[in-house]
C-alpha cells in the first residue's frame, strides 16, 4: 500500500484539507451540543502523528448532507450479517485494527497508508436498529426493549467491532450497552488465520517494527477483543479495585446483561478530552495526575495495563475526577513479567546504579547481553523514558517531550538500536507509554511526578505528596487488598 505511492505535495495538501474539515466539525460540535452531534457521527478516530496528535473526521458525504445526515446514516446502515461481512470482512476489519495499533506503535504512518486506514474507518456505517436488536436478543435471550426498561435504538458511539447504545435497566440504572457486529468474530478469526497476508500488510503499514511480534500481538489482542466477556472481566476487576477511589472511576459491569457479544456497564457522562483545552491549567493538572496515578497504580498493584490510551476513553468531571472507559485491550502481566520493569526503575531512579540497570535490561530481554556499548551510552539512550521520575521536583510534560519519547523509541540510528528489542509481552507497554505521555503533553501537565511515583512504587511506598495523594491514602487504608479481591473473584490466590 504505502509502497505504491510516494508522498506527494498533493497528499500533504489533502491532509491539510482534512485537518481543516476536522477543525470545522469540532467547532460545530461545541456549538451544536455534544450528544446530538455524537449521535450524528460515527466516531472516527485518526491518529495524525504517531499517537501524538489526534483529529476526528467524518465521511464527506455526511458532512455535506447537513440536516439530511441522520437520514443518510440510516439509509447506509448495516442491515444484515452479509452487510457486516462486506464492510468488515476480507481483512478490512483486521486492517482497521492494525491501523489503530500502528498509530500507537509507529512513528508516523505514511500519508497514503493513513488515508487508506482513515477511509476504511469512514466506510463503516452503524448497524440498523433491527440488526443490533437481533444481536442483543441472541445474546441475552430477550429483545432489547424487554431486556431493558428503555432502549435507545440510535447508537451513541461506534466501537471498533461494534457500537454503543444507551438504555435504562429494569432497576432504573442508566447503562451503556456495547453490541458487537454479528458475524464479525467468525470473519475476523478466519482473516487472522491468514498469517502470510497479515505479515505482508504489517510490513507495508509499520515497516520499522518487528513484524513477527506484531502479528502475534495482533492475533492475540483481536482474539481477546472479540469476546466481550474478557473485557467485562478486566473492567469488573478494575472497578472492584478502584471502588470508592476519590478521583478514579471505572463504570461497573452489569453481569446479568453481559455476554460474549453484548457488554453492559453503567453509563457515565462527562467532558471529553478535547473540551479540556478550555479548562484552567489547575484542572488540567489534576486530570493529568489522576491519569498518571491510574496507569501506574493499575500496573504495580493489579499488574494490569490498559493498552488503549486513546483520548476518547476518558470522561472528565472536574476536580481531577476521571472516568476510565473501554477495557477491551487490557494486558495482565504475571509477577515474573512485571519484576524486570520494577527492577529497572529502581536501579536507575532510586539506587542510581547504572550497571545494575543494564543487567536488569538484559535480564528482561530489552538489551542483548554483552553488547559492545558503554553503559553511559545505554543510560543516555534510555534516560528520556525515565525523565519524569529520575529526579525529584516538579516538571511540565510538554508535547515536545512526548514527541521526543516517540522519536527516541523508534530511533533506528541510535547506537543502542541494534542491540535493543522489545520482548513480546512488553509490546503493549510502548502503546500506553507513548499514549499516556501524548495525553499529558497535550495537557501541558505539571506535577512532582517523582513524588507521585514514589507513593506507588512498591519498593518505596512513599508518603502522600499531594492532596489527591492524601485522599488516595485514606481510600487505601479502608479497602481490601487487590490480592484479596482477585482471590474473591477467581476463588484462587492471584499467583496460584
Amino acid at each position, binding site marked *: 500500500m504505502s509502497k505504491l*505511492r510516494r508522498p506527494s505535495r498533493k497528499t500533504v495538501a489533502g491532509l491539510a484539507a482534512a485537518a481543516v474539515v476536522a477543525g470545522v466539525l469540532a467547532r460545530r460540535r461545541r456549538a451544536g451540543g455534544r450528544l446530538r452531534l455524537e449521535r450524528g457521527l460515527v466516531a472516527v478516530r485518526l491518529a495524525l502523528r504517531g499517537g501524538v496528535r489526534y483529529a476526528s473526521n467524518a*465521511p464527506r458525504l455526511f458532512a455535506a448532507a447537513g440536516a439530511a445526515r441522520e437520514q443518510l446514516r440510516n*439509509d447506509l446502515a448495516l442491515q444484515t450479517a452479509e452487510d457486516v461481512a462486506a464492510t468488515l470482512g476480507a481483512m478490512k476489519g483486521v*486492517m482497521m485494527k492494525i491501523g489503530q495499533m500502528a498509530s500507537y506503535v509507529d512513528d508516523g504512518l505514511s500519508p497514503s497508508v493513513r*488515508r487508506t486506514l482513515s477511509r476504511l474507518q469512514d466506510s463503516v456505517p452503524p448497524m440498523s436498529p433491527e440488526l443490533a436488536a437481533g444481536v442483543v436478543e441472541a445474546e441475552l435471550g430477550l429483545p432489547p426493549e424487554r431486556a431493558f426498561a428503555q432502549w435507545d435504538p440510535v447508537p451513541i458511539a461506534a466501537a471498533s467491532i461494534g457500537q454503543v447504545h444507551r438504555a435504562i435497566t429494569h432497576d432504573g440504572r442508566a447503562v451503556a450497552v456495547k453490541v458487537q457486529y454479528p458475524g464479525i468474530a467468525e470473519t475476523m478469526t478466519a482473516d487472522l488465520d*491468514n498469517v502470510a*497476508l497479515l505479515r505482508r500488510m504489517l510490513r507495508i503499514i509499520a515497516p520499522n517494527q518487528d513484524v513477527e511480534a506484531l502479528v502475534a500481538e495482533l492475533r492475540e489482542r483481536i482474539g481477546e477483543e472479540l469476546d466481550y466477556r474478557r473485557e467485562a472481566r478486566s473492567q469488573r476487576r478494575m472497578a472492584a479495585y478502584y471502588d470508592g477511589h476519590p478521583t478514579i472511576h471505572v463504570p461497573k459491569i452489569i453481569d446479568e446483561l453481559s455476554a460474549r457479544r453484548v457488554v453492559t456497564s453503567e453509563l457515565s457522562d462527562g467532558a471529553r478530552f478535547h473540551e479540556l483545552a478550555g479548562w484552567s491549567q489547575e484542572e488540567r493538572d489534576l486530570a493529568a495526575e489522576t491519569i498518571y496515578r491510574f496507569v501506574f497504580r493499575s500496573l504495580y498493584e493489579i499488574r494490569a495495563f490498559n493498552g488503549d490510551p486513546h483520548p476518547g476513553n476518558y470522561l472528565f468531571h472536574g476536580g481531577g475526577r476521571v472516568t476510565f472507559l473501554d477495557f477491551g485491550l487490557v494486558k495482565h502481566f504475571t509477577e515474573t513479567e512485571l519484576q524486570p520493569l520494577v527492577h529497572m526503575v529502581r536501579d536507575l531512579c532510586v539506587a542510581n546504579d547504572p550497571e545494575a540497570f543494564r543487567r536488569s535490561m538484559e535480564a528482561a530481554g530489552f538489551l542483548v547481553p554483552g553488547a559492545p556499548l558503554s553503559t553511559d551510552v545505554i543510560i543516555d539512550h534510555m534516560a528520556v523514558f525515565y525523565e519524569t521520575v529520575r529526579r525529584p521536583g516538579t516538571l511540565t510534560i510538554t508535547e515536545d517531550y512526548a514527541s521526543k519519547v516517540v522519536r527516541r523509541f523508534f530511533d533506528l540510528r541510535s547506537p543502542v538500536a541494534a542491540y535493543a528489542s522489545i520482548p513480546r509481552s512488553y509490546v503493549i507497554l510502548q502503546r500506553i507509554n507513548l499514549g499516556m505521555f501524548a495525553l499529558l503533553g497535550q495537557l501541558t501537565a505539571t506535577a512532582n511526578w517523582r513524588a507521585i511515583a514514589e507513593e506507588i512504587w512498591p519498593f518505596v511506598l512513599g508518603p502522600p505528596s499531594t492532596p489527591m495523594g492524601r485522599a488516595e491514602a485514606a481510600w487505601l487504608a479502608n479497602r481490601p487488598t487487590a490480592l484479596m479481591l482477585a482471590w474473591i473473584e477467581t476463588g484462587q490466590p492471584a499467583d496460584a
Partner: protein
Amino acid sequence: MTAESYADAVDLVARSAAAYVAGVPADPADEGLFGPASVTWRVNTDPGAPIAGLTALMVQALHPLAMAGVDQHSAWRQDPVGRLAATSQYVTTISFGERAVAERAASVVRRIHEHVRGVDSVTGQPYAASDPALLLWVHAALIDSAITACRLFGTPLSPGDADRYTAEMVVAAELVGVPAGMVPASYGALQQYMTSVRPELRCTPAARESMSYLLEPPGLGPDIAEIWQDVRDGAVAALPGWARELYGYQAPELTPARQTEIRQALGVLDAVFLGEPGVLEARQRITLRMRSAARS
C-alpha cells in the same frame, strides 16, 4: 525495482479509481440503462468484480482477431494502465451512468472502432473492430467471466439471476453495434455460444505477451506484488478449462482455504482502492440507490 516502476503502479490504483469515480454520477437524471434494482448493478458491486475483469480480458484475448485489433491499434504498450482505466471507465459508465452519458460513451467507442481494421499477422485474416461477431465475443466473455467470478469469489448468482443478468446485458452489446438478435439472452444460450466460438480461438504471441503483463505487471511494489499473486491465481482459476489449456496454465488448486485467501487479498486491494479520493462516496451513492430501489 526502480523509482520509475513504482510510478507505474501508483497510476494503476489512482487511475482505475479516478475512472470508477468518473463513471458513477452524483445526481443522475435517470436510472441509466439497467437501474439499481438490476442484477447488473449487483454483479458490478460484487467483491469478485476485479477478478471478473481480469478473467474477461484473458478470455477475450484468445480470439486472434480481437487480440490483433488491440495489439495493432491501441497504445497499450506505451500506456497499459491508461488502456485498462479507459476500459473500466467505459464499463462503469455503461453500468451506472445516466442513459444519455452511456450512449455517448458507446458512440465514442463505435467511432474509435471504425478506424480499427487490418490483417491479423497470425491467421492472415482481415479484421474490423466494428465486426459484430468480434464485439459479441468480447461481450460474451465478460458476462461469462463475471458469473464465474461471483460464484468463486463473491456471492453466487442463482440460475434465475444468471439468466436475468445475461438478458439485461443484451443492451450493452447493442450499444457497441451488435444486433440484438445475435446476442445470447440466457445463461444456457451464452454457454452454447461460447462453445460454438471455441474452434476459432488460439493463444497468439500477442495474447501471450499482453496477458503476461497483466498477470505480472512490472513495477508493482514487492508486497503488493505478492497480494497480486492471489488475485492472479483467482483470475486463472475463474478461466474456463479450455482457456487455461490454450494458455498452457496449470489449474490452480482451489481449495476452500485458497478461495478464502483470494477473497482476503481482494479485500486488501479493495481497501487500498477505497483510500483513493471519491471512491467511498461513489460506493455510498450506489448503495443508497440500490437500497432505495429495494424498498420500493
